[in-house]
């Protein structure tokens, strides 16, 4: 057989980790990758986990470790997609959101404003918000995922939060500027303008 030694230990360890963390990893991936590629990316994440099983820290440190693997796997996926399609511009998958928000239509609209603002952030700043507010990591855990210090993370996080706040406030305050989803590009521009220089 191909692959690591077929002993009950590693397999059982991997299966426990897989079953325990699948949902969180799958959600992380599905927030960032188009639906048609998500299953492949999720499988790739756990394939890496299987190959590096000895490196996986025990809970709860395994969560940020897994998200870091997922983040790298998604980066690889996006690079491959760019090469494959030879796109000069950013792929849709590279923008934050590939899935649509849930909830009522009124709420979806409000969320659209936020998502549009987040899409205009720098990737590292956007990821800072997502790791804390969507993946529910602590700031220290999120810093570990991004490979930066907690201080650097705090800076990114505050900048990102401020940019989203400014973009949403600007969009809703401008008379007649936002009347529906068709105005999202203006929201993105607002977010870009509102982003602090760094």
């Amino acid at each position, binding site marked *: *057989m*191909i*692959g*690591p*030694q*077929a002993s009950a230990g590693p*397999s*059982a360890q991997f*299966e426990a980790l*897989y*079953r*325990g*963390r*699948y*949902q*969180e990893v*799958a*959600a992380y991936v*599905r*927030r960032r990758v188009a639906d048609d590629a998500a*299953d*492949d990316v*999720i*499988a790739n994440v*756990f*394939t890496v986990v*299987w*190959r590096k099983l000895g490196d996986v820290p025990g809970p709860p440190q395994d969560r940020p470790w897994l998200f870091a693997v997922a983040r790298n796997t998604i980066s690889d996926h996006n690079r*491959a997609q760019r*090469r*494959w399609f030879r796109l000069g511009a950013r792929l849709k998958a590279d923008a934050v*959101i*590939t*899935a*649509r*928000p*849930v*909830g009522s239509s009124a*709420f979806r609209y*409000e*969320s659209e404003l*936020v*998502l549009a603002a*987040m899409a205009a952030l720098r990737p590292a700043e956007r990821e800072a*918000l997502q790791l804390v*507010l*969507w993946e529910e990591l602590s700031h220290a855990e999120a810093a570990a995922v991004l490979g930066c210090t907690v201080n650097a993370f705090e800076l990114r996080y505050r900048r990102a*939060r401020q940019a*989203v*706040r400014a973009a*949403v406030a600007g969009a809703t305050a401008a008379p007649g500027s936002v009347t529906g989803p068709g105005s999202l590009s203006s929201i993105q521009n607002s977010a870009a303008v509102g982003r602090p220089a760094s």
Partner: protein
Amino acid sequence: MNTENLIAEANPVPLASVADGASPHAQRTLDRIMLLEHGDVAAGRGRRRRAVHGARRSRRAPRRVSRVVVGLTLSATAAAAAALVITQLVPVGHQIRRNAAVTHASTRPRPGTLAAALDSLSLAADAQPVESPPGRGQFEYTDESSLNWIDTYKTPTASYNVSYSELRQIWIGSNGSGRIVETYSHPRLGTAKDRAGWIAAGRPSLAVPPTDSAFGPGQLSDGPPNLNRLPDNPAKLAALLVARKIEGGPKGPAEDFVQIGDMLRETYVRPSLRAAIFTVAERIPGVRLLGTVTDQVGRSGIGLAYLHAWPAQGEIGKSVLVFDPKTSKLIAEETLVTYTKTGKTALVAWTDYLKSGVVNSDTSTTPMTGAGPAQPSS
């Protein structure tokens, strides 16, 4: 609502909307990973061990020349039909050797032996005498045995696929001219459906007469690529390979592995370059060492494999290259497919390279220098 709450609420994929680790969807992904990585299906389904045996479709014909000539004998329909056949299609004459391959494939390599094996092949390659590419009036000659398929279509109900053991001799001149002599034996109808189609067609003879075809300049190939212009530096060589500057084709490690096979199939590549190619092979993600394997004609060699996941088809393909450990020459290729739904594996394509080298005419079968691995090395 503050900004953080707004962002949290805008989460497009709430955790509760995603299947959990106990869901059938998660189980299918787990099975896929374990089949790829472990050669087994995960716990929770009884740990069914699956022998790697049999064979099937190749996404790409295993021989460089076959890209030119494959249309002479194989149709796309045959290839598609071949995808549906399973282990019973392997000729009876190969049954024992196939089982032997099971034994070898079941012996899991120790960690790190891929590097050791490729280092060994690299050293063996570097120690070989220099071989020159075919010059003017000369030919690259290859004598090979393979599993081949022929599709016959009369009506939708009177159609069938037949596998044959094919012996093929190829002479490729430096100007792209050449000759191909093919002999078919051991015809076998693929499935019950093929047999029914054959009966409906009136039970025609399955015998295929030998062919002997001559090709003018440029008709057989564009001529052997000048691989000797490539650098010996593995890093530079890898960069050219990945950038598809050596040979066109899609991106990705699967194609890298195919092109490594293409380069090592050329007998006239200088030893230092062959050594570098093995070093590059070590860097391709996903390349596996199978250990010592036996090809369809009973020769032992070092087997390398690359696994391809084809989720849309519910299949996992395995491309295998077998090298003579003493000379580093490519002696065989195989393609196997595992059907993730059933767990069955089938050998869908194989080619054994019996003899290769540069000859002086398109009737000569005796290479001038560096005859290929006609004799088993072990």
